[in-house]
């Protein structure tokens, strides 16, 4: 086994070993021990990932690919699939984010789960998740990716329903699982179409067999495959119309929300589209669908976020909205920008989720921001880091969120696959984001305290604040590897857009207009000033004039009601989709199953029983009767021999 294979084995094996150690010892109550094992496994994995990426950097840009085949998974006729792994420019970013942010969240969990009853089980699941997520991003073919894809879904389900004695939380887990199942069906169909058309499931083979001209229309195999894969992505990455599971997924422990439902798993759909960028650019119609769904989800979820009162629900809708941005970027062909936003979002959203976890921990499991306020004084470190995350997500200039979001907005305007309307939707969503995030900050940390008297908030222990600080620093400076050209030109030393150079050889491109830098600056100015105005409004509403939001809400009337009830999407799904399916299933059960299938089987069993009853009377234990059978048999044989 050469050195790279060994690194792959350590990278994937460490979390798996951690899972087995904690999983076999799942009754342990020792959160320090199990937490240390799990965190250690994550850190070992991170070191292996870093070494692997170092190897990758030393290769020339066009050949930045390290492959390692472990064993032949299946071989059927001409078709064979290896358990093979591939790290290239795209998955390098992913493995660093997964293991890096993952390690920090493991560390945070040690403090967060200190008082839990089954910490070993929790850490076992967390490590299993890391393993599956790495499988997803490292797979060198669609099938290995699919195994990881399903595996992270399973871990997500297990961790959302981790406190399964609460029926609501168990139901949230099932909702996530079933919604993901719908998407996974699309993903599988996409794989089938690709295999049928190109006869391979390996990424490199697939991309080399693609035709060179884009497909026109809606019914070509590439467009259909892209759309089917995108359905899978909407399930995993919580986009319209399958986003409904993510807000409910907040029932899980908060570090899980940070790791799975903000930083890593939900970005799997974006990663998959970026990985198959060569396929998607050949299906302009599918790209248009991706961009529109992304933009619409970004705005839709952001408006819901405006009215939520649960700290984690706000962040959940924010995550849906930010994922919408990534799909918008992927849809207009800015795959690099999508990866960039994926990375920065992993930093600041993990930071904010962990910060909210720190707050919830301090507030003794209280999540309603109406019962918070003024926590700035009691929790200075959490506040400071959350503040950085807030600046990053609303797009404060030069922070990570600004870099990636404005690159997306600029590309959605300037790309040949983009449209000013997409840009406009993105900017409005950015303003909404700025408003609800400021509202969250104001209600949680600023203003007067509304904390109940019996609660005494306190700053969290170091195992929880250290990850916050590290993620805070990353949110501050993480964007500097992708400074836009127009800004880089103004800074001394002219730093380039390193990320774009890094990713360029691995990505397909669509033609981009070389817009003037004045246009880019003015668009940037519009989005930043709109976000600033929205933030100022929110500050004014919730800190300076706390009585105003109610008046504004009353002014919006029905519209406010619709938004605060999440547009009744869950209710509509319940009434229009779930209930008909349940009714239909009941009808099938009552008429087809009971009336037809059961009758058929009962008839068959009656026949067998009747025949058995007749034959049973022959075997009654009466010796003389047996002797009679022998005699009859003899008589028949003699008759046959003599006469027949």
């Amino acid at each position, binding site marked *: 086994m050469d050195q790279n294979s060994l690194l792959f084995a350590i990278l994937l094996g460490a979390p798996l070993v951690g899972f087995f150690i904690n999983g076999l010892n799942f009754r342990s109550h020792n959160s320090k021990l199990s937490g240390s094992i799990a965190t250690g496994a994550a850190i070992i994995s991170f070191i292996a990932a870093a070494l692997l990426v170092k190897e990758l950097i030393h290769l020339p840009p066009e050949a930045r690919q390290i492959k390692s085949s472990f064993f032949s998974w299946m071989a059927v006729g001409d078709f064979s699939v290896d358990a093979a792994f591939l790290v290239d420019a795209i998955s390098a970013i992913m493995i660093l984010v997964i293991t890096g942010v993952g390690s920090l969240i493991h560390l945070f969990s040690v403090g967060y789960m200190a008082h839990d009853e089954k910490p070993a089980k929790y850490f076992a699941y967390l490590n299993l998740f890391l393993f599956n997520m790495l499988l997803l991003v490292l797979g060198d073919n669609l099938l290995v990716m699919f195994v990881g894809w399903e595996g992270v879904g399973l871990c997500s389900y297990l961790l959302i329903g981790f406190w399964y004695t609460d029926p609501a939380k168990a139901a949230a887990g099932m909702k996530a699982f079933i919604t993901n199942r719908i998407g996974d069906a699309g993903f599988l169909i996409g794989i089938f179409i690709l295999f049928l058309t190109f006869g391979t499931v390996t990424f490199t083979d697939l991309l080399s067999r693609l035709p060179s001209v884009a497909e026109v229309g809606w019914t070509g195999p590439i467009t259909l495959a892209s759309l089917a894969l995108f359905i899978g992505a909407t399930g995993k990455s919580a986009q319209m119309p399958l986003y409904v599971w993510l807000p409910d997924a907040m029932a899980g422990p908060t570090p899980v929300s940070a790791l799975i439902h903000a930083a890593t798993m939900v970005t799997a759909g974006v990663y998959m589209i970026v990985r198959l960028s060569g396929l998607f650019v050949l299906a302009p119609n599918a790209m248009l669908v991706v961009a529109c769904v992304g933009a619409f989800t970004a705005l839709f979820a952001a408006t819901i976020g405006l009215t939520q009162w649960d700290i984690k629900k706000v962040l959940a809708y924010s995550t849906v909205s930010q994922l919408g941005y990534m799909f918008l970027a992927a849809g207009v062909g800015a795959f690099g920008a999508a990866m960039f936003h994926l990375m920065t979002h992993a930093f600041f959203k993990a930071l904010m989720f962990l910060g909210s976890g720190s707050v919830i921990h301090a507030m003794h499991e209280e999540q309603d921001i109406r019962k918070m306020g003024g926590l700035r004084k009691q929790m200075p470190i959490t506040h400071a880091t959350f503040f950085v995350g807030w600046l990053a997500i609303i797009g404060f200039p030069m922070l990570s969120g600004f870099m990636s979001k404005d690159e997306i907005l600029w590309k959605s305007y300037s790309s040949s696959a983009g449209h000013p309307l997409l840009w406009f939707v993105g900017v409005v969503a950015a303003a909404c984001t700025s408003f609800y995030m400021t509202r969250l900050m104001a209600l949680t940390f600023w203003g007067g305290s509304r904390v109940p008297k019996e609660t005494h908030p306190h700053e969290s222990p170091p195992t929880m604040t250290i990850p916050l600080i590290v993620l805070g620093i990353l949110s501050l400076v993480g964007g500097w590897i992708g400074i836009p050209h127009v800004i880089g030109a103004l800074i001394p030393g002219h730093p380039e857009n390193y990320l774009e150079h890094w990713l360029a050889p691995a990505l397909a491109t669509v033609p981009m207009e070389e817009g003037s830098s004045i246009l880019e600056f003015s668009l940037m100015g519009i989005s930043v000033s709109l976000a600033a105005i929205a933030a100022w409004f929110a500050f004014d509403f919730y800190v300076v004039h706390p009585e105003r939001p109610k008046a504004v809400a009353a002014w919006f009337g029905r519209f406010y009601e619709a938004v605060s009830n999440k547009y009744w999407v869950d209710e509509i799904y319940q009434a229009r989709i779930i209930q008909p399916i349940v009714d239909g299933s009941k009808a099938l059960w009552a008429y087809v199953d009971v009336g037809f299938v059961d009758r058929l089987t009962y008839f068959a069993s009656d026949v067998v029983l009747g025949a058995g009853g007749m034959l049973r009377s022959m075997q009654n*234990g*009466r010796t003389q009767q047996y002797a009679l059978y022998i005699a009859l048999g003899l008589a028949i044989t003699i008759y046959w021999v003599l006469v027949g």
Partner: protein
Amino acid sequence: MPSIESLNQIGLNHYLALSAIIFSFGMIGVLMRKNVIVMLMSIELMLNAVNLSFIAFSNFTANLNGQIMVFFVMTIAAAEAGVGLAIAVMIYKKFKEINIRYFEQLRG
């Protein structure tokens, strides 16, 4: 007094017919009678009917194989009678009667 010549007129078929008649009597006894002792006796009848046909064949074909076979049959008949009577004795000890229907109790 019948002469030796009249004995010579008895052919193979006569012996076989006698054997078949005795065998049938034995079989009817096994099938009809309830008393185990009588049934055992009927089995002996059947076995000896078979022995008779063996001997007859042996005599009429000048071949000793049939007579050898008869010794085996007699040995087995003796063993079978021993086992059968032993079981019959046990049944009698338990039920104070020797009826074939009590043999239903022998199932394991």
